[in-house]
């Protein structure tokens, strides 16, 4: 075993021991739930009322058909401790193995992904593959249940979809939706061994409509509206008095717009007055890129901060800013 491997092995063993001690002695990384019981009574035809709600007072619930179930809500460790102290045999709050497992998996995957900063390794590859696979599957499932079922089959045959998938779905069948169904089937035809050209027709339709929608959107919102928004007074007056700062800002905006446009005007060689104006335009563009870079840095640091907050708070229990484990607001 070379020196580097030995160092990393020792670091990993010491880290794992620390995690185990932290988890055993302080319950770090554990998640607790509150068990909530629900009970509803059938008061009228198809009308169910929560027996614990104010609405239930309006009805005589004696002898009515009832349905009950229980669910879990995430609870604070503090609430769990307090409930245990008050009554050790309480069952309202309990330890959740599945949610605890979720926190540990999330923490491990965060470390696996961050390990890429040191160098590429099998843990990173594993985490990356899982993320890609889960994302693809999630998109597919969400697309099926949120779009294809309610917005395609639900429109074509509401009663059929109502009977097995969406009890709340209402409405009349709209046969116009056969068009997207046929186009969808044609699009999937590219997976078939022959006749892949059939998928080009719906693809052409998608490209055409998307281009049309986007073209109008950009011309209206970005081109015409931006021209209108740039037509602003160079001298701003408010209640008859000259507003120097507002006027100065408007002047800067106009100079910025005009010089940046001149920079992108390539029909005339950038020499003389045009060249100098274009140079000013470059300065404005550079300042814009700098501001964009600054904002990007801020965003990336915020993303790192939340992952570290998760590790220090939810997993290791080093900090507790939301007062979930110690008494507070």
């Amino acid at each position, binding site marked *: 075993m070379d020196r580097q491997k030995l160092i990393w092995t020792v670091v990993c063993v010491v880290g794992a021991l620390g995690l185990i001690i932290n988890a055993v002695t302080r319950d770090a990384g554990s998640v607790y739930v509150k068990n909530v019981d629900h009970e509803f009574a059938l008061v009228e035809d198809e009308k169910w009322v929560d027996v614990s709600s104010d609405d239930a007072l309006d009805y005589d619930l004696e002898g009515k058909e009832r349905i009950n179930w229980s669910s879990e*809500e*995430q609870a604070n460790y503090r609430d769990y401790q307090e409930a245990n102290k008050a009554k050790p045999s309480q069952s309202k709050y309990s330890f959740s193995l599945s949610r605890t497992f979720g926190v540990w998996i999330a923490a491990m995957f965060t470390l696996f992904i961050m390990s890429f*900063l*040191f160098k590429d390794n099998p843990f990173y590859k594993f985490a990356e593959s899982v993320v890609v696979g889960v994302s693809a599957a*999630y*998109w597919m499932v*969400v*697309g099926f249940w*949120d*779009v294809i079922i*309610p*917005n395609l089959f*639900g*429109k074509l045959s509401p009663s059929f979809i109502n009977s097995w998938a*969406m*009890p*709340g*779905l*209402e*409405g009349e069948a709209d046969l116009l939706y056969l068009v997207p169904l046929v186009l969808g089937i044609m699009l999937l035809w590219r997976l078939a061994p022959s006749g892949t050209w059939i998928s080009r027709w719906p693809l052409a339709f998608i490209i055409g409509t998307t281009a049309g*929608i*986007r073209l109008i*959107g*950009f011309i*209206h*919102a*970005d081109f015409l*509206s*931006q021209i*209108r*928004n740039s037509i602003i007074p160079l001298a701003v007056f408010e209640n008859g008095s000259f507003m120097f700062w507002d006027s100065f800002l408007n002047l800067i905006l106009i100079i910025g717009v005009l010089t940046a446009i001149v920079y992108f005007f390539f029909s005339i060689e950038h020499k003389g007055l045009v060249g100098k104006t274009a140079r000013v335009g470059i300065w404005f563009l550079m300042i*814009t890129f700098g*501001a*964009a870079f*600054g*904002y*990007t*840095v*801020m*965003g*990336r*640091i*915020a*993303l*790192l*901060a*939340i*992952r*570290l*907050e998760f590790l*220090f*708070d939810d997993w290791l229990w*080093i*900090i*507790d*800013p*939301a*007062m979930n484990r110690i008494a*507070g*607001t």
Partner: protein
Amino acid sequence: MYDFLKNLDRRWIFLLMFLSVSIPIIIIGITGQSFPEKPTALSITTFEIIENLKEGDKVLLSFDFDPASEGELGPMATAFTYHCAAKKLKMYFMALWPVGPQMVDNAIENVIKKDFPHLVYGEDYVNLGFKSGGEGVIKVIVTDFMELYSTDARGTPFKSIPMNKEISSVQDMDLVINISAGSAGTKEWVQYAVTPYPDEITLIAGCTGVQAPLLYPYIPEQLPGLLGAIKGAAEYEKLVFDRYYRDEGLEVPGRYQEGVRRMGPQLVAHLLMILLIIAGNYIFFAEKKRGIP
């Protein structure tokens, strides 16, 4: 110095960045102290647009982001939801991103159920869920919700939800709040909702830092209010919770100070970035001086 900086392993820079972010998180997390925040004009305008709405006004909240940008946009989503609930506005939640409904659930769990348990689903707030199609969804619902939303996220028929009886399209909303991490997001809401219907639809937004410079040209005509990145979130948090907690003599709960807390690591990490940029420029000019191509 030149040789040291030139040959510095990039992993030392990663370690420095890790320390510059983690140490402030731990210190702020343990002490509960954070840096003071002074709201800028844009955050104040955003706050006042919501503050000027009347009880019962209808607000559409489109949560167009996912866990990847939750660090920046989560605090905004929490503060927007709190502000709307405190103002007793009717909240219509929706999402153009597949994981958006989970972000909506987080806001409902952490804000409405904890601090406004008296609000009734279907009467005070509703979750319309996710629809795919991006700008296509906006283009449709800007004239007709029912065309795409036959039910809410729970499967209840759209028109049988009491608060939905008052609306037929986005134009019926008194305000649209968009929290955006990319496309489809604020740009698409400006292009396909605000620009064609400037008198009917008012949009304010919270966005990631990457997007903010692209959205500034829309201010103030097409986008009167914008919270840019975690800085915007921290400023807005300060305004909202000063108004509804500190002004009432109450202590602000830690869960409502995520944005303000995250400004601490920002400060230290930005100082490190400035030092690294100076170091990079030193190498550049040193090489130029030594004639190294």
